[in-house]
């Protein structure tokens, strides 16, 4: 059992180049922030320096606290407070994450189930071929207004939009993955007396999980884009909407703060998915699983997780 400082030291040693590159990037940003011209509309530099982002801009976030409890509301003359800022960030973050998670789960479930249903029948597979290609061609963000027209500028619209965006990917991925399941497993299951349904549930579905998790990794970025896009254009809450509010007043610091928050959330959601994938796919040989999930995952797995070849 290693101590925490030792683990941190080990982590830094293993990734010093990555850490150094980030430090250099932040330094360049800070220098640019102090040299950049001010925005003509408000006293905001085009490139906001860090002390401004995490100082004045963070405090200004309390402007977006619109509930008359726990903290004053600047929008009706109340003072700006850090409590209000954190509450506003937490509230709008929670809304965005709720829309993202709901859309992701809905899209994954519907896309996978439809994909499995289509894979069941060769006729349906052929029938769905051309429409599938069409669906993939639709520019996702261009469809936001249509979804808001159909479902309204509300939570449902954002959730359904995210579900549609990722659902199409899952649908296609499931059909492809199901057609790639090795015939030997299907034959083996048939000779053991398994029904078609049991083969789907116990053989095909687990066999396609690695490809589905690859899709999850791919669709995470897409889902974030979709939910932020939906909030940009119509839904009147969420961190995407916060960026638009900040843009109205050229508040570059606030825009940057929300962007940093988005990076943190996206990174965290990616880490959560990697952990879930590492657990669900623990039956796979480590090297293959790392290819599916991420090449860096092996470095983070505890030693107990490494495969052990048992002697005969």
């Amino acid at each position, binding site marked *: 059992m290693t101590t925490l400082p030792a683990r941190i030291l080990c982590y830094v040693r293993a990734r010093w180049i990555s850490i150094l590159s980030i430090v250099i990037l932040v330094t360049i940003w800070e220098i640019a922030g102090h040299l950049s011209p001010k925005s003509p509309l408000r006293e905001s530099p085009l490139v906001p320096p860090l002390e401004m982002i995490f100082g004045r801009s963070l405090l200004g976030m309390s402007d977006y606290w619109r509930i008359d409890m726990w903290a004053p509301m600047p929008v009706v003359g109340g003072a700006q407070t850090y409590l209000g800022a954190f509450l506003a960030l937490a509230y709008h973050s929670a809304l965005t994450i709720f829309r993202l998670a709901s859309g992701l789960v809905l899209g994954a479930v519907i896309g996978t189930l439809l994909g499995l249903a289509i894979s069941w029948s060769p006729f349906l597979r052929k029938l769905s071929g051309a429409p599938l290609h069409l669906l993939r061609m639709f520019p996702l963000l261009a469809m936001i207004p249509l979804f808001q027209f159909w479902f309204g500028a509300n939570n449902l619209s954002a959730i359904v939009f995210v579900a549609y965006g990722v659902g199409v990917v899952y649908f296609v991925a499931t059909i492809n993955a199901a057609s790639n399941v090795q*015939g*030997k*497993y299907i*034959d*083996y*299951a*048939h*000779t*053991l*007396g*398994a*029904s078609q349904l*049991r083969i789907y549930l*116990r*053989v095909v579905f*687990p*066999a396609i*999980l690695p490809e589905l998790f690859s899709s999850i990794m791919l669709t995470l970025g897409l889902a974030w884009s979709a939910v932020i896009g939906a909030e940009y254009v119509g839904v009147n809450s969420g961190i995407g909407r916060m960026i638009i509010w900040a843009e109205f007043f050229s508040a570059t610091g606030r825009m940057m703060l929300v962007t940093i928050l988005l990076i943190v959330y996206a990174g965290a959601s990616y880490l959560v998915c990697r952990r879930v994938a590492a657990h669900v796919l*623990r*039956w*796979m*040989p480590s090297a293959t699983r790392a290819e599916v999930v991420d090449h860096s995952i092996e470095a983070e797995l505890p030693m107990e997780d490494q*495969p*052990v*070849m*048992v*002697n*005969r």
Partner: protein
Amino acid sequence: MIDIRDARCTFRHTSGRLVEALRGVSVTIDDGEFVCLVGRSGHGKSTLLRALAGLNPLSSGAIAFDGNTVTGPSPERGMVFQEDTVFPWMRVHDNVAFGLRSLGTRESETEKLVSEWLSAVKLTGFAHSWPKELSGGMRKRVAIATVFATGAKTLLMDEPFGSLDYVTRITLHSLLLDLWARTNRTIVFVTHDIEEALILGDRILVMSEGQIVDDIRVDLKRPRDEEVRASTRAVTVTKSIIRNLGLAGGVDETPEPKSSDLR
């Protein structure tokens, strides 16, 4: 009893030409027999075995088990494949239980049978292991336990030990013969290894160009150790197989049709 009558199987190879993998195979296999199908690669052994399993349809002719014509796969005819088919996403216990659960066996009975068969293949301590944690030989034992556990009356084995090292193969031969003796199931075992056929089979069917060209009763005593395999009778059987495989006058290379081309 397995009754194969004028079994023919023709399929189109990926190159476009028609391949006649089985050319009128007729043979009867009695209950409890250990029959080895010997032949060169691409001469119809695996095609015949897959047809017996109901995985490949015949172009003409018929195969019947106890009078029932084969129309598709059945748990009555368990198959151990050449490739590693143990489900990697199930622990060893669940792999062995898969067939039993597919047949709707009660959970208590399933647990009992899984435990018995894991013990029979000497994998008792590995019930909760993932297949990736086992060696190739151990995974074969899982596949054997799975097929035996379902109660299949006939076991069809398609070069199951072909990818294993010599010592593991010898160990698995003993295990398989032990299980066969205890359960009295019918086993049809495909191999291209004449020595393996001599060790295992009490009957050897030699296949060449989609036909059975020789049917040899192996009346050698068991266990068939090196001394037995060096006996005059064993040498005669070996020579007969070699002659029927067309190896005596040199090897004629023919392209190998893959069983997957049949699907």
